[in-house]
């Protein structure tokens, strides 16, 4: 009852056994958490945290807004990069490759510091939120361009030849053959990337952007309580990321049926 049916059998797990298994797994996690905290011999004090609840709310909203802005811009950056990478003008193509490899090969923390204290400073750009969104977008854009590239290249060669055979132009091939399939295939990975952006936005605290993690750490420092600040922090991120992960799963399933 607690086991999933064999891969090749066509029966489904019953709702009852699903629920039971889920509860069992939840219980194991709760027990684990309980014993970890019990072993730490910690005196809980939620009252001081409650006083600072506005900081949690503000930080959570800031993280959400920064992540949304970064997601939007990084989609544009990713799309532009993949277009440039497919360009036939080689210097342009190589610039895109260098950008992707540089970004993927260095830590985001270093990129944020470099962008804010070196690049933005020499450009006279002082708004740390703009620079923060730019840093996140450039970082995530490189990954998204790779997702797009992978999706585009996953469209079979025979389809391209067929497209040529029926006389589609280069643009038409992309517009009607490659693009619809590639977009659908890249959706699950894109959703995962969105969750990554939300988590990565916590690194923006290094340039004093008042996002969720920084505010939680501030409350922790002001009230000298760490667990009481970090638990709401973890929950706040889960509220943002869980629906996205869930959505990714659903999309993934639907795509599997369509192809």
């Amino acid at each position: 009852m607690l086991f999933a049916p064999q891969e090749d059998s066509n029966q489904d797990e019953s709702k009852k056994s699903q629920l039971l298994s889920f509860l069992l797994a939840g219980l194991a996690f709760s027990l684990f958490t309980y014993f970890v905290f019990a072993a730490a011999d910690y005196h809980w004090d939620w009252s001081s945290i409650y006083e600072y609840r506005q900081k949690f709310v503000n930080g959570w909203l800031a993280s959400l807004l920064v992540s949304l802005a970064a997601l939007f811009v990084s989609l544009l950056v990713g799309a532009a990069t993949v277009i440039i990478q497919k360009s036939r003008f080689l210097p342009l193509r190589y610039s895109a490759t260098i950008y992707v490899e540089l970004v993927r090969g260095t830590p985001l923390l270093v990129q944020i510091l470099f962008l804010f204290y070196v690049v933005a400073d020499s450009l006279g750009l002082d708004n740390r939120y703009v620079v923060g969104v730019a840093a996140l977008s450039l970082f995530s854009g490189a990954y998204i361009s790779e997702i797009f590239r992978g999706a585009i290249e996953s469209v079979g060669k025979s389809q391209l030849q067929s497209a040529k055979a029926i006389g589609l132009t280069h643009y038409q091939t992309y517009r009607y053959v490659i693009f619809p399939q590639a977009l659908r295939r890249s959706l699950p990975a894109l959703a995962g990337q969105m969750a990554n952006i939300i988590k990565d936005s916590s690194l923006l605290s290094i340039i004093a952007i008042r996002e969720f993690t920084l505010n939680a750490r501030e409350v922790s420092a002001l009230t000298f309580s760490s667990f009481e600040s970090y638990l709401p922090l973890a929950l706040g991120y889960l509220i943002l990321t869980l629906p996205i992960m869930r959505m990714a799963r659903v999309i993934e399933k639907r795509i599997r049926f369509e192809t």
Partner: protein
Amino acid sequence: MSVSSVLKAAIAIATLVGLVACGGNDSRTGPLVVGMELAYPPFEMSDKNDQPIGISVEIARALGEHLGRPIKIENIPFDGLIASLRTGKIDLIISSMTATEQRAKTIDFSDPYLETGLCLLVSKDSDIQEIGQLNQPGRKVAVKNGTTGHNYAANEITAADVLLFDKESEAVLEVSQGKVDAFIYDQMSTYKNWTKRANTTRAILKPFKKENWAVGIKKGNEELRLQVNEFLRTFKAQGGFEKLGDKYLAEQKEAFAKLGYPFYF
């Protein structure tokens, strides 16, 4: 539900619980664990071989000698020190920590061993002369998370924008690039930061708030607190602080004497 599946689940849970139950640490018998953030020269820092050195490290070692216990230094971020002490990860905090009323609600403090004060580091061409000018809309004030400067700003700086940094170095960089108006920090560090970036920053060393540094001890550990106090008295009587001051802070000592601000052990 089949018997074997229940058994498997039970074993899985038991393993998890067993793993957790084995945790826990023994105090008193082992070495005395002293927590500090090794990012605050010349008090807490690490040498080229990544070994902890500095005034606080020498104080800790002298304390170990006094008590006849080996000393283990743990490098922990400043804002995590009190939590580490509360959870028993460390026995003592010797990390240039000010004994504030608010901190004293969660942990105990020894007698103070050093008096210093909060002051300002401003950018070279800033018109700011004193703290009163900072608390205005449009001003930007940098503080380091968890420091007394942060506490002061959280309570007193209500009109200006308070920017929170993890590291002192970034806060200083912001001042020198003119991104913030001032950085609220203690006198000795402010002096040091100003000498390093004398062509872009200006130090206003006159303290606007006095504070005392003390050793942090877990709440209720009276025995250790009395031992530390006794050590501090002996160490002071033997001129230990003077010697450390001459060894690490000769330049500051001279500069502060010239300016007429006391800050000494």
